């Protein structure tokens, strides 16, 4: 369920960066998500298809790079797989482990195409701006802000 919030935020972020790059369409997105981040890619894809309809990210492909959760020993520096449930260092037996990766959750890059063009009803040159968003006909092109 919370993947909808993640999808809406991702869309807003991607469209903003596309706009700033002067691009017309977003065709691909590259997310980096840690193993401990509560984000299920299949569920995200489902919502993504629904919420991007009619936006410049319609039909875009999302790839998710999962980062393994790792614990690093504060005493000997060895790294351990967090799925080993004892959380004791295999190297030196220390229990002073610290989480060093696995909570990532960011948009790394987007693939874009075409140049931003004005469309009927949108103030020229400000496509996707607040001004354009409030104009009928532009909302569908650039999407609206997250409702939550």
């Amino acid at each position, binding site marked *: 369920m919370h993947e909808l919030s993640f999808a809406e935020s991702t869309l807003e972020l991607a469209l903003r960066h596309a706009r700033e790059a002067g691009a017309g369409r977003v065709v691909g997105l590259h997310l980096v998500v840690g193993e401990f981040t509560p984000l299920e890619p299949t569920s995200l894809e489902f919502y993504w298809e629904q919420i991007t309809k009619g936006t410049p990210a319609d039909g875009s492909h999302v790839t998710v790079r999962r980062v393994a959760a790792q614990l690093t020993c504060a005493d000997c520096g060895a790294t351990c797989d967090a799925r080993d449930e004892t959380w004791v260092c295999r190297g030196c037996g220390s229990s002073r482990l610290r989480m060093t990766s696995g909570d990532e959750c960011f948009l790394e890059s987007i693939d874009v195409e075409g140049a931003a063009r004005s469309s009927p009803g949108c103030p020229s040159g400000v496509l996707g701006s607040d001004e354009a968003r409030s104009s009928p006909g532009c909302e569908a092109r650039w999407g609206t802000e997250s409702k*939550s």
Partner: protein
Amino acid sequence: MGHRVEVIEDILSANDHLAAQNRERLEAAGVFSVNLMASPGAGKTSLIERTAAGLASELRLAVIDGDLATSLDADRAAAAGAQAVQINTGGQCHLDAAMVRRGLEKLDLSQVDLLLVENVGNLVCPSAFDLGTHTRVLIASVPEGDDKPYKYPGSYHSIDAVLLNKIDLLPYVAFDVKRFLHGVEVLNPSLQSFLVSCQTGEGLEAWFSWLRREVAGLRAEVVR
């Protein structure tokens, strides 16, 4: 011809931005705030009732209560003497910064010292959404089992304090407190932990003292 645009920005940055605004608003009013997270039934509302009663003569308490439906929890908080606002998330499994902002608008912050935000009972996603509170507290309870930090590291990670509630049940449940605390401390090296029972009141004084110190600490910062 397509090309790649580097972004490197947190997916929830819009939420984080709103959360920062909430934090500023709370700080301006001198209100110390806590995001209380737990699975359903761990004792969030019981802890709020106990806290309201325990600190009633010293601190003015407000509660923002997130639930899928009903105002049962806010009613309990109000009965315990707190200014209470219910937010029904309508199926959403967590509170986010925008919902808390709406809750803040309904409170008279000039009459509040301590704000407890009771998140939706869920151990999966509330941790991902910064609400703009000063501190994040997780309530676990003995019947849930001592393996939860290992099974839900995402939720047990980046918290400032943990309360283990229902310790009056320890004699009857196979729960290794040491194993539990080790898991939480690995994920949060500088964490505060409290072993409490909202049923008997055991251990709650340490929790109250911590809240008193944090409230006073925020006030000292605001004054400076």
